């Protein structure tokens, strides 16, 4: 690690800023009263964000493609989740398939 002071300052920035995000959404909501439709919309927006997070963390590494093994593992986990498999089975299957593919030489 290069410069401890700088790293600590960066960590503090990330921690404080993240807390500010966590708080400000709630404060905004308390000031405005939302109709049920808007509430459903906001919940939908959160699902869209999470789905995008799944897609990017499964398929990309930095600015490029992550390789085949990881997205295939996540896809297997997704299919199992859709078929209502237990949560731990989903997660272990995702990791297991990815590890297995890499063992076979798949990137």
């Amino acid at each position, binding site marked *: *690690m290069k*410069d401890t002071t*700088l790293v600590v*300052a*960066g*960590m*503090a920035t*990330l*921690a404080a*800023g*993240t*807390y500010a*995000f*966590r*708080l400000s*959404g*709630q*404060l*905004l*909501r308390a000031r405005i009263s939302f109709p049920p*439709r808007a*509430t*459903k*919309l*906001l*919940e*939908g*927006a*959160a*699902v*869209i*964000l*999470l*789905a*995008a*997070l*799944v*897609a*990017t963390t*499964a398929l*990309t590494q*930095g*600015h*490029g493609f*992550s390789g085949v*093994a*990881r997205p295939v*593992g*996540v896809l297997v*986990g*997704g299919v199992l*989740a859709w078929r209502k498999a237990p*949560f731990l089975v989903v*997660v272990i299957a*995702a*990791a297991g*398939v*990815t*590890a297995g593919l*890499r063992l076979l030489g798949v990137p």
Partner: protein
Amino acid sequence: MSSIRRTLEGSVLRDIALTCLAVLFIGLSYGAIAVASGFPLWVPAAQSVLVLAGASEFLFIGIVAAGGNPFAAALAGLLVNSRHLPYGLALPPGVTGRGWRRVFGTHLMNDESVVFALAQEDLPRKRAAYWACGIGVLICWPGGAVLGALIGSAVHDTNAFGLDAMFPAVILALIVPQLREWLTMRAALAGAAVALIATPFLPAGLPVLLALVAVFLLLRDREPAESAGGREPSGAEPRSDHQPQAAP
């Protein structure tokens, strides 16, 4: 804790426990990766408690380890974490607690606690699920990170165990119930596609936010129902009926 046990069904509590267990495993990989990247143990330990948002911490460690400026890494992490603002908008008031409890409850807001809260039907259950999952993650994420950092010297290649597939699989498993509604699924797929297309061109974190343009797909379907003539309440009814079924 006893009030949480009274409020939540056993199946929900079990799912929360399993989620926390998965978070612990992801924490293991996080701590191991951080140490393998040359950080001392206290970096993942402090970050996992104070930031408490996995994806941004991975990103921070990754950028700094690659020689990036820690402030640039923090900004990238904040981009990723800006999704907590719409999370706060989506949570009904009172879920994070009131008064002084809210100061702490706000810190417990993360992908998992928000999803579990939204999946419950009424406010007491939403609040119980949010706090149970939030505190579970507060214990398991730093616990896993410290444990991972300790054994990190033993396990060098965490990718060989497919641990990097765990985080997306966890989030995917959590949103599957909501994705069973076609309208949400369509918007989520479109948002994911937008984020993927944008990834090569935008700084990390921005593509996920750009996915929000897909929100308009949640709107479109309802306009014909409105123009069908004052049927807005009945049009909204079936959608709220779907919600209990969607609970994990």
